[in-house]
């Protein structure tokens, strides 16, 4: 794996992400500053980490989405390159047009920082091959704007094409408004683009990868990605 982790002013989860990528794949990623125009040669995974790029000014992710490096990321994605966006990274991918929809203020207006349960909808994707379809994983969230919405037509297409990868669920995998903590439409926690090579998700799988921390549920995502990329290489 030759991962590139993008760094924007105000991002604060890039080190967690880099640490996890090294721990699980064995190779440290390259950190790429937002003002760069090119990704490092041979990059096979771009990760847009979480945080508060540009202090969430204007709209979450809006300004980061217009930085020079994002043109390179768009070109990389157009060629089928794998892109993972977590939390603010998901917001940036939506704002940059790589993913449809938008992340609105949480329905209850609170910043939510706690573990949530996610139902993994499918396992036949490079991002979720480390899990079984229907499996429930527990990972943390930390966001004020995670309430996913899109117009009815977009939602119908996402659902029809099986592009919802993760949903907020109960510990036993029931989709229930009581467990949909931010009010996202259809309890959507993570989606992929039409080609399936760009994933955005609000929860932080990179924070649950070591037994010392308590849980390792997030490891499957990075282990799956590593496997997928090594198979190609």
């Amino acid at each position, binding site marked *: 794996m030759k991962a590139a982790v993008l760094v924007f002013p105000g991002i604060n989860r890039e080190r967690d992400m880099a640490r996890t990528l090294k721990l699980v794949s064995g190779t440290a990623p390259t950190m790429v500053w937002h003002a760069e125009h090119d990704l490092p040669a041979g990059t096979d995974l771009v990760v847009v980490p979480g945080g508060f790029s540009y202090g969430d000014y204007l709209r979450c992710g809006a300004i980061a989405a217009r930085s020079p490096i994002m043109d390179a990321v768009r070109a990389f994605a157009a060629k089928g390159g794998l892109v993972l966006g977590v939390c603010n990274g998901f917001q940036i991918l939506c704002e940059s047009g790589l993913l449809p*929809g938008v992340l609105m*203020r*949480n329905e*209850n*207006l609170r910043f939510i920082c706690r573990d949530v349960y996610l139902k993994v909808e499918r396992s036949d994707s490079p991002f979720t091959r480390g899990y079984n379809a229907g499996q429930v994983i527990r990972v943390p969230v930390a966001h004020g704007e995670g309430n996913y919405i899109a*117009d009815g037509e977009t939602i119908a297409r996402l659902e029809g094409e099986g592009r919802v990868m993760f949903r907020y669920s109960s510990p036993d995998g029931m989709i229930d408004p009581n467990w949909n903590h931010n009010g996202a439409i259809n309890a959507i926690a993570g989606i992929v683009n039409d080609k399936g090579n760009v994933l955005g998700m609000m929860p932080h799988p990179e924070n649950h990868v070591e037994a010392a921390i308590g849980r390792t549920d997030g490891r499957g995502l990075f282990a799956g990605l590593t496997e997928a990329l090594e198979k190609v290489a």
Partner: protein
Amino acid sequence: MFPAPRSDSYGKPPIMKARVTVTLKTGILDPQGKAIEGALRSLGIAGVASVRQGKVFDIEIEGGDPKKAEALLKEAADKLLANKVIENYRVEVVG
């Protein structure tokens, strides 16, 4: 004798004032607007039927052509100021 030109404006293009107003589309849930609505009620300000929160950008444009200014502001709104998935915008060149 001619008076000396004012150094602060000499050679500079005129400035036009403009305003871009960004509002949420109808049907998009606005939790912040709802909270403000509730706060107005609890302040005893009667008669508020609903509140929707938006954004206002006051922008100064170089040049004196309002048509050009309007086109520039629309481009700015389309590319950055508004997210057209959830927001509408209105452009005014005040002059």
